């Protein structure tokens, strides 16, 4: 919100004026109202290993994060480019592996990665698209440039909060929308359904799409139910589906009904106990065989994890050059790859300045934030790195931008990131904006909801 010299950035000034005019107790009232809205609607997420609060509200902050139109159009071009290259990479890796032959990525790093799924080798998918839904995590740092922090290409979540946050803001502060021309995001479910229908197996004219959820106890269950409802498709669990002669059916009150597209919100490992983890109760026996026979579409495709793995991340700029012949529009955060001896040496010498991440970690777990860690924590982490360097990457701590946020003491800056959702079917489409997550603890860089993160409405200005 503020530029370097503590002046209000121009696109925040109508908000700052509104804030100055609005009495403080009205703001407090609205905060309480927001809480009631979310609680009554049951917009909750489940926290694992927490028996008391198995359903918790995600904290919602009433200060919007505002992005000028020009800034967004740059981001949009960059996202389109990046997702195109990632899908090209997935197709290549599961076909001719040109990028490995060209020596741009060490083959063993891809082929020995658990996220690489040999089952996908040689399989042709409609329109060659693998990651139909991508959630790309961006941060803004330093002088205002954006960096890609992470590509989420497996089962990216959070889009329901983007939509619910907007709904809440419009209900709580209609007057603010009179001061800003905010680009709409409410049509996201339509775009998603269109994308899912577009990737149905060839020859199916009116595909039946379902959303496969692990069930009501999953942390993102609210979102699964929400999206299924918004798209008007069935929300199914593994037990609702069965495969007969390589065709997938769901069990209905009128008998079996054929399913053409499965928008799955469960990981590869749990999809099919016959193909992957045999102890999975969430999946559908025989699903992979039906998929490989081209009788059903699975979205995102099986095996997309190889493209968003943290060990693959450093190579994305190379992918863009290799497949598209373009320079990357969105920058990667500079990354040291600890399997490289020279990078390892540098990182070990600068552990107190760097962020070290486990390549397979997620949700902000399994990482070291050097500048905030104690001596002992750093030394303990050093042992773990030396034991298996290939498991880690390291990045500099960025001077992340902050957004004003209501906390106990009033308005204060808190770090934010942004996850736009990019849909790839017949075309690449996205709604302007995304999910803004905010680290509510002072100074914290971790925005994950499981670790005290909250959300904000994201306003991309229409002009």
């Amino acid at each position, binding site marked *: 919100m503020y530029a370097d010299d503590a002046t209000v950035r121009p696109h925040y000034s109508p908000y700052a004026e509104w804030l100055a005019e609005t009495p403080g107790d009205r703001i407090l009232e609205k905060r309480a109202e927001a809480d009631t809205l979310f609680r009554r609607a*049951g917009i909750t997420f489940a926290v694992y290993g927490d028996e008391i609060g198995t359903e918790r509200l995600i904290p919602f902050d009433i200060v919007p994060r505002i992005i000028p139109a020009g800034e967004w159009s740059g981001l949009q071009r960059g996202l389109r480019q990046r997702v195109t290259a990632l899908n090209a990479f997935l197709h290549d890796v599961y076909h001719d592996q040109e990028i490995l032959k060209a020596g741009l990525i060490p083959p063993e790093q891809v082929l020995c990665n658990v996220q690489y799924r040999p089952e996908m080798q040689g399989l042709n998918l409609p329109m060659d698209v693998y990651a139909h839904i991508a959630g790309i995590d961006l941060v803004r740092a330093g002088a205002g440039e954006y960096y890609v922090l992470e590509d989420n290409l497996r089962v990216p979540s959070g889009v329901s909060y983007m939509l619910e946050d907007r709904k809440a803001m419009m209900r709580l502060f209609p007057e603010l929308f009179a001061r800003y021309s905010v680009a709409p995001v409410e049509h996201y479910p339509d775009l998603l359904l269109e994308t899912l229908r577009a990737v149905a197996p060839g020859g199916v004219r009116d595909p039946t799409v379902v959303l496969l959820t692990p069930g009501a106890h999953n942390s993102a269950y609210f979102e699964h139910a929400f999206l299924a409802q918004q798209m008007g498709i069935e929300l*199914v669990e593994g037990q609702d589906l069965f495969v007969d002669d390589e065709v997938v059916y769901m069990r209905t009150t009128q008998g079996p009904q054929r399913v053409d597209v499965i928008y799955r919100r469960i990981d590869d490992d749990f999809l099919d106990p016959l193909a992957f983890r045999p102890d999975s109760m969430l999946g559908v026996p025989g699903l992979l065989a039906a998929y490989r026979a081209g009788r059903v579409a699975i979205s995102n495709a099986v095996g997309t994890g190889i493209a968003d793995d943290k060990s693959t991340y450093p190579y994305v700029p190379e992918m863009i050059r290799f497949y598209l012949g373009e320079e990357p529009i969105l920058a990667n955060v500079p990354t040291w790859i600890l399997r490289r001896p020279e990078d390892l040496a540098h990182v070990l010498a600068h552990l107190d300045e760097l962020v070290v991440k486990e390549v397979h970690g997620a949700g902000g777990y399994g990482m070291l934030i050097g500048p905030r860690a104690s001596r002992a924590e750093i030394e303990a982490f050093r042992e773990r790195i030396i034991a298996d360097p290939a498991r880690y990457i390291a990045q500099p701590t960025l001077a992340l931008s902050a957004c004003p946020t209501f906390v106990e003491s009033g308005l204060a800056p808190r770090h934010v990131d942004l996850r736009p959702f990019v849909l790839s079917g017949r075309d690449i489409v996205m709604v302007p904006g995304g999910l803004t997550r905010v680290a509510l603890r002072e100074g914290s860089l971790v925005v994950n909801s499981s670790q005290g993160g909250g959300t904000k409405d994201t306003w991309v200005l229409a002009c």
Partner: protein
Amino acid sequence: MLSRTADHLYWMSRYTERAENLARMLDVNCRMTLLRQEEDVVRRRWTSTLATVGQLEPFLAAHGVVTQASAIDWISFERSNPGSIDQCLDRARDNAHAVRGTLTSETWETLNATWLEIRRFRRDTVSSQAPGDFFEWVKFRSHLARGVIQGTMLQDDALEFTLLGTYLERADNTARILDARFEFLAPEAAKSDDAGDYYEWSALLRSVSAFEIYRKVYRDLITPRRVAELLILREAMPRSLRHCMSRVQQTLVRVANSRSAETQRRAGEIHATLQYGRIEDALEEGLRNYLSGFLERTSDLGARIARDFLVSEATA
């Protein structure tokens, strides 16, 4: 629609309806004890109520002695009692939660709000001092849920299975309420013009919202024969067995599938017995006998509905 979804909707409405009828049953008992407060009468009444809802044994195991306050507390709030109002509302909400995408948001929010709000009642005060407000609240929340369901949900199979649960549960519950009262009020005893009996019968009618209806329909003294007729055979009485079974039968016709012919036939048979039956014959047979036969047949119907629609076979 998905069999599992239908199952959740069906149980969501069964549990909501059950909570309402438990509240009705408790309410009538509380009113009656205002009339006759002898200790053994009160104990007998609550013992019978616990038996009616099938909870006497677990209650005795937990409490030993039946008192009004402990019985109200047990049926209203006891979390270890799966048949308590609290647990019924909890399960109604759990089932709604599992299919919240199928429900309108108003429906889901109503059930969720009920589940959140029951915690604002203090169980010690409710059970010993003012249970009436609590029972009113439970009934009101059930009315609200039903109203929201009928006023907002698409008229498709989801609504059908929701209604199926409501009416099957209500048929069962009305039969049980009636059965419990007839245990105390043997027809021959009720033939006398004892004022006490008048109050017993009027309390029973009130517990199923039928007091004014009785007046309107019969414009005469309250007699057990007519009460039984009203609650069993009157099509126009929304809580009567005949009305409920008529709705069940109609719903089954609308959701029929290739497996359900026998289930439909049995529902039709139960309904026909009510439609063409005479109350004299039921009283002749003995009303308690008649009702337990009815309960057996509806429970069989419930099992058949589950098998035909709700629990799906792998390649049916």
